[in-house]
């Protein structure tokens, strides 16, 4: 394998949470928690996930807009090709160790495009100067030459040279994003990091910008790290995709592999929630309940297990998968003290008479999508015992017996990456036992 342009290893970015008079650190939001990926020259890697999963933080840490907490980002572009690791294990091209001069040079090789083109331009600076400013910063003092370069670029991104002296407010959103592209290209970088570059745009404009990015990528031989929450956009433009969940990459692989044969349940769920433009397609598929948990206290084991529809059942248990999910949700709600029995009673009553206990029991089961009986006699007994305790307002004891009886390996073991095909890896316990991935496949 040829040398990757960008190689990210175990990158972490934690935001400290401080409290009290002495500003002591009491915790950390683990926005990015150990991600690794490579980008080959000329390749487009997509980074996809729900909001709050750390995609944008990952991007700004890679380009060192924010200082990463730990990890290594090796950038082999911009004339730094072919460097070897030093004997002490560090890499001379490690962006996280660059000093100021190296960092400035690195910025020539890697550029970023942001989501909102309106807020990434100075309203008082003509777009030509905004684009040309980068050249000035990097030492091109000849004004006429700067102008010539920028005018040429404006034309290449589909605007006209006359637009040089116009101001950002005179352009539409799509045009502004074209200017942002010109600005990213003006230093002739090897890598562009695009953070949701089309999310703020209309569909028809989206398509235009995407095809422009595609054309320019070919023309300039760019590598692209493309961040989006929109799977259909990712599919259109990327060669490979990394799916992120709560600061971790849960699956990475070639676009076709991810879309036709998703291995991680989260990828499956993400794909199935895309509305297909086919009125006959059955609605729904896998519904992910709730939102991404807080990164300050991520779930143990596999971070997705709190929402996963394929949670593994422990040895000796074999109940309906929906019931199992319901049981887990029920357990979590009881332990968190979120179940308000009074309110359930009220809902069931819908009037004067106090509801029968059996109705309340049935309502609780319905609320958590648990069937009338659970296939496993032991679990069934525990469940009805717990509901009984709940009805007597003994939440604590109910939580205790549920936590003891309902356990899943997913909450205990952190899944390792397993290989599914060439370049296609996922981190899910269900695949454990298959060939596990080398921890750092392309490390040398």
């Amino acid at each position, binding site marked *: 394998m040829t040398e990757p342009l960008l190689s990210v290893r175990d990158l972490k970015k934690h935001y400290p949470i401080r409290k009290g008079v002495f500003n002591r650190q009491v915790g950390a939001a683990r926005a990015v928690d150990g991600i690794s990926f490579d980008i080959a020259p000329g390749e487009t890697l997509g980074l996809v996930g729900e909001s709050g999963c750390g995609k944008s933080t990952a991007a700004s840490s890679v380009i060192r807009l924010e200082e990463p907490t730990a990890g290594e980002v090796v950038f082999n572009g911009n004339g730094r090709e072919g460097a070897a690791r030093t004997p002490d294990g560090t890499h001379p091209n490690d962006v996280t160790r660059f000093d100021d001069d190296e960092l400035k040079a690195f910025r020539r090789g890697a550029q970023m495009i942001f989501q909102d083109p309106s807020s990434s331009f100075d309203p008082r600076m003509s777009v030509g100067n905004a684009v040309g400013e980068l050249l000035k910063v990097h030492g091109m003092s000849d004004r006429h030459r700067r102008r010539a370069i920028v005018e040429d670029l404006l034309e290449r991104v589909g605007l006209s040279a006359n637009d040089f002296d116009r101001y950002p407010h005179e352009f539409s959103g799509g045009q502004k994003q074209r200017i942002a592209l010109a600005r990213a290209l003006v230093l002739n970088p090897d890598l562009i990091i695009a953070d949701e570059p089309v999310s703020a745009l209309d569909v028809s404009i*989206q398509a235009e910008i995407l095809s422009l990015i595609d054309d320019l990528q070919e023309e300039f031989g760019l590598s692209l790290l493309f961040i989006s929450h929109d799977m259909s956009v990712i599919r259109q433009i990327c060669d490979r995709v990394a799916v992120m969940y709560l600061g971790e990459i849960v699956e990475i692989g070639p676009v076709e592999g991810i879309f036709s044969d998703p291995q991680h349940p989260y990828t499956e769920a993400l794909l199935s929630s*895309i*509305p297909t433009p086919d009125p006959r397609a059955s609605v729904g598929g896998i519904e992910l309940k709730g939102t991404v948990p807080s990164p300050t206290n991520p779930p143990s084991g596999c971070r997705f297990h709190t929402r996963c529809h394929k949670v593994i059942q422990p040895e000796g248990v074999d109940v309906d998968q929906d019931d199992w999910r319901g049981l887990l949700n029920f357990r979590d709600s009881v332990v968190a003290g979120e*179940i308000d029995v009074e309110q359930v009673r009220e809902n069931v009553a819908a009037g004067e008479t106090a509801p029968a206990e059996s109705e309340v029991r049935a309502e609780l089961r319905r609320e958590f999508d648990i069937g009338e009986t659970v296939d496993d006699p032991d679990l069934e007994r525990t469940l009805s015992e717990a509901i009984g305790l709940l009805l007597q307002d003994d939440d604590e004891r109910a939580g205790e017996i549920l936590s003891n009886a309902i356990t899943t390996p997913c909450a205990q073991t952190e899944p390792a990456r397993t290989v599914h095909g060439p370049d296609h890896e996922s981190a899910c316990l269900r695949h454990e036992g298959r060939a596990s991935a080398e921890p750092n496949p392309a490390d040398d």
Partner: protein
Amino acid sequence: MSSDQPLLEVEDLTTTFSTDDGTLTAVDGVDFSVDTGETVCIVGESGSGKTVATESITKIIKTPPGHVEGSVRYEGRDLLSLPEPKLREIRGNEIAHIFQNPQEAMNHCYTVGWQIAEALQIHQDVSDEAARAKAVDLLDRVGIANASSRFDDYPHEFSGGQKQRVMIAMALVGDPDLLIADEPTTALDVTVQAQILKLLDELQDEFDMGILFVTHDLGVVAQIADRIVVMYAGKVMERGGVLDIFDNPAHPYTQQLLECLPEFGGTGGGIPGTLPDPHDPPDGCRFAPRCEYAEEACRTGGQPEEIEVAPGQRVSCVHYGPGGSPSVVRSEEFGPANGDETGPTGGESGVGPADD
């Protein structure tokens, strides 16, 4: 609704704004209707007048500078001629709105429960306790877990999807017959979007509401719409049942809109050109300047009359009118690409993303 008149009937709706550069016509003589229990989607690019059209129905656009003409009949009453106090009784009560950005549609200084209760007490004479109970009930209905304890939380304590649920709860206070949803899921993640669409669908069944849904996302449209109205530059280009529009889009604009999608063989590129200047729309068909099939006849007169091309499907295009030949526009078979004959994207667009 015993009579056969639709729940909402909009005729010749024209909304103009006085600006420094002259009069801007955002919506120009638009007709559509919504029946009880059905979902009508208005689609089009940004700037095509979708939002202004829906906001003109209950006149929540500012007048002046706005000016609304035409007729909007809701259950037989003409809303546009109603005096403001009467209109206020309907707005937010019988006809409810939800907006794209729930963040901006709520007051940050009050708890969400207070805001729902306020909406309730404006329209109904209920005690504080009863309003609270109803608000908790509504929050529970829209799927806010542990509703009674979330009642006293502030908007910033909710996630984007939860805020949109709260907005929906607020819209439901008056058991509305018509819900106007303006891009309610555009600001949300796909997973959350799926949750909200499902919720709206359930609530529609439960309350037997008509829903007027504004969006530019054709995937969402395919999922929820019964009928579609395609708008461009303030005019209706085409209307029809969801299957008709997706299987046999008649208007070149609808075709190109669909062709932007990878599932329809879209290879990117979008629709060349931009929307015309709303101060000075072009003669003839509004889409003519960007239309590849435009002829001389397309560039003269006004927007062509709507012609029925299939039962319930009507299109405003010269080529379907007298003397025109539809085959000019409908030259090829249309539909989602089926695997092998996809374009240069590498053939991966044949498999529907949600096939499982």
